[in-house]
């Protein structure tokens, strides 16, 4: 009832503020907010909306080795899903590629969530002073001072057949022959992706944790909750928005990634981005556009699904 009353009050306030607005006591002319938003809107329109529309339109065009022709055909989409619905037991290229990408998304999401949550928990609850929290937080960002290609490539001398890891393991007699699966493998790709993207999990989760009212945790303790119960009943529900934002970052980046998968997988592992790149290199823009649209749809559906799990607007 109390809550209902409060909502009523806030609605009344809103009504009042709208009324004030309508009386226009402000000196600012009505067009000013639009002008303020215009530069970004223009940038988005020119460099995001227009190219996206162009991509969508071109995905229905015809092409030859050296030209693309305006048309309205679905053959590019048919080619993207070539052999997918033929009923054969082998997966078609597109499904196999997305399945492989999905596998990486799932593994990398789980691992970055675990590491990201632990790191954020440590920073938020175990480090007592704010300066120390800030200092340690900066330490987390150090890897980001270099380009992600360099961070990726530096794994290669470490993991290679004659790399540091193999030589160390061999010299202490743990293995006789070098481990082949360290580099150019699913393992290498997962490792590099986790290394690159864990921070995207740490930041939003840390942010959510810092906003938790400490008296809630004290109350839980006073009420006799164990540490585990406090974690599952208080902390995790309250950092859900952070987890969700971090997950959106990680899932969308990994879905579209092809550089890491290319370099760490020795180009032997398929990714949608690589397929698109190959097609663009051979001037097959329409089918590349169709692939891009399909990828976009997959990412949008994923985000839509994730947003349904947590009402992010309410929590923020």
């Amino acid at each position, binding site marked *: 009832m109390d809550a209902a009353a409060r909502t009523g009050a806030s609605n009344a306030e809103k009504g009042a503020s709208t009324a004030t607005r309508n009386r226009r006591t402000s000196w600012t002319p009505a067009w000013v907010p639009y002008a303020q938003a215009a530069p970004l809107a223009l940038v988005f329109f020119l460099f995001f909306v227009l190219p996206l529309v162009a991509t969508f339109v071109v995905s229905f065009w015809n092409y030859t080795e050296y030209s693309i022709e305006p048309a309205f055909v679905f053959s590019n989409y048919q080619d993207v899903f070539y052999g997918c619905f033929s009923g054969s037991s082998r997966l078609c290229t597109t499904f*196999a*590629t997305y399945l*492989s990408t999905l596998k990486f998304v799932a593994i990398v999401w789980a691992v970055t969530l675990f590491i990201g949550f632990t790191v954020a928990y440590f920073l938020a609850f175990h480090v007592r002073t704010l300066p120390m929290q800030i200092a340690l937080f900066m330490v987390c960002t150090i890897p980001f001072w270099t380009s992600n290609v360099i961070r990726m490539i530096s794994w290669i001398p470490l993991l290679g057949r004659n790399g540091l890891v193999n030589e160390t393991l061999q010299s202490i007699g743990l293995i006789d022959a070098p481990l082949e699966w360290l580099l150019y493998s699913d393992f290498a790709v997962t490792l590099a992706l986790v290394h690159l993207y864990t921070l995207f999990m740490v930041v939003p989760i840390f942010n959510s944790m810092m906003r938790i009212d400490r008296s809630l945790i004290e109350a839980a303790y006073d009420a006799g909750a164990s540490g585990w119960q406090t974690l599952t009943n208080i902390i995790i529900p309250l950092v859900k928005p952070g987890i969700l934002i971090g997950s959106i970052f990680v899932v969308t980046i990994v879905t579209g990634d092809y550089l890491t998968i290319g370099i760490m997988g020795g180009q032997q592992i398929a990714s949608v981005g690589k397929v698109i790149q*190959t097609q663009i290199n*051979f001037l097959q823009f329409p089918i590349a556009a169709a692939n891009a649209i399909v990828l976009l749809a997959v990412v949008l559906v994923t985000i839509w699904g994730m947003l349904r799990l947590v009402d992010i607007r309410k929590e923020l």
Partner: protein
Amino acid sequence: MTILTETRGGVTRRSILKGSAALGGAALVTKVTGFPALAQEPVTLRYLSTAVNQSPAIAEKAGEDLGIKIEYIAVTTDDVAKRVITQPNSFDLVDTEYFALPKLLPSGNIMGLDAKKIKLADKIATVIRDGTVDGKKVGLDGTAPTEVLYLPDEEATEFASEPTDFLTLIPTTYNADTLGIRPDLIDGPVDSWAALLDPKFKGKAATLNIPSIGIMDAAMAIEARGDMKYADKGNMTRDEIDATIAALIEAKRNGQFRAFWTDFNESVNLMASGEVVIQSMWSPAVTAVRTQGIACKYQPLKEGYRAWASGFGLPIAIDDREKDAAYEFINWFLSGWAGAHLAKQGYYTAVLETTEQAMEPYEWAYWFEGKPAEKDIMSPDGKLLEKAGAVRDGGSYNERMGAVACWNAVMDENIYMIRKWNEFIAA
């Protein structure tokens, strides 16, 4: 990855002038180009090609000898073709591979070169002009230069079937590619393309992730293994593509390949680090591994070589002043110094006679005659390539180019091939 460097940023004086002329159309603005002071400024040629052909020394020497300013635009092999088709106004001279021509020519963006204006046109190597070396025919599978060299007229969009006075590209460099191996990490001899798919090298082989070249190397290996015989490896039927990709997928599932590469430097790293002991390789990559002091052999194989050739073409939209300069530059390029400069990196050149004149006799003997080096062989920038006594892998020009089995190609079924190649990568 697209690496794009333009020496003077994207905007040149020329493009500004052109832009303003087009914008205004006003006599006053267009007349600016007519000012004597500006007309005497050195003409700039925007030279589009891959980075391997773009030696700063050549640009510098051309500047001294001709007063022409060469402005390099370095992109990858695929991007050269892409740029010719999508941005034909962005360069004045293109150095591209002959195998791209069946794509480039129909676009109408490049024009034929008038052989009468090329002084040494009839001295261009026979392997390019008619597909012979020392009077003997070489393998012409794929897009052999001789098949795409001639045009009926300057602005033709189809090839001529017999020699004419209009040439599509004037050769800059060409070579015969084969497998590179690490002799120190391999037991026993390698003498056939079949070795690329030999389970003996399981997990230690690599091939290119450039479909048009990768599938040729695979076809050489599959044919050498005796699995099947191709009518024309450079122009496969759908059935042949299916069979080739199936064989590749099988090899991949069995763990034959350590990695694939698209960039020349990746192949150098794979080889130098010992991740790979046998792979498709390009000649300068072998040289690069060797200059690191690591044994690497460009192994001649009994089935022959996969050859490629690159050459100068002109964009159709070129202005007269730049066109004259381009002809002047091409004539200079064929006259010896530039050829010798490139030959010292292991490339073969368009006009062998002038290259020979511009090289030291011991260098010519090593690079072209297959004789042991009398003195240490240096790269153009003064690094030691080979010690005295070394012999070039594969021997003389006649032995190497004479043993060409096929040429880099774009197939009629290219679109289908790319689809199947993506299937191979996803498998």
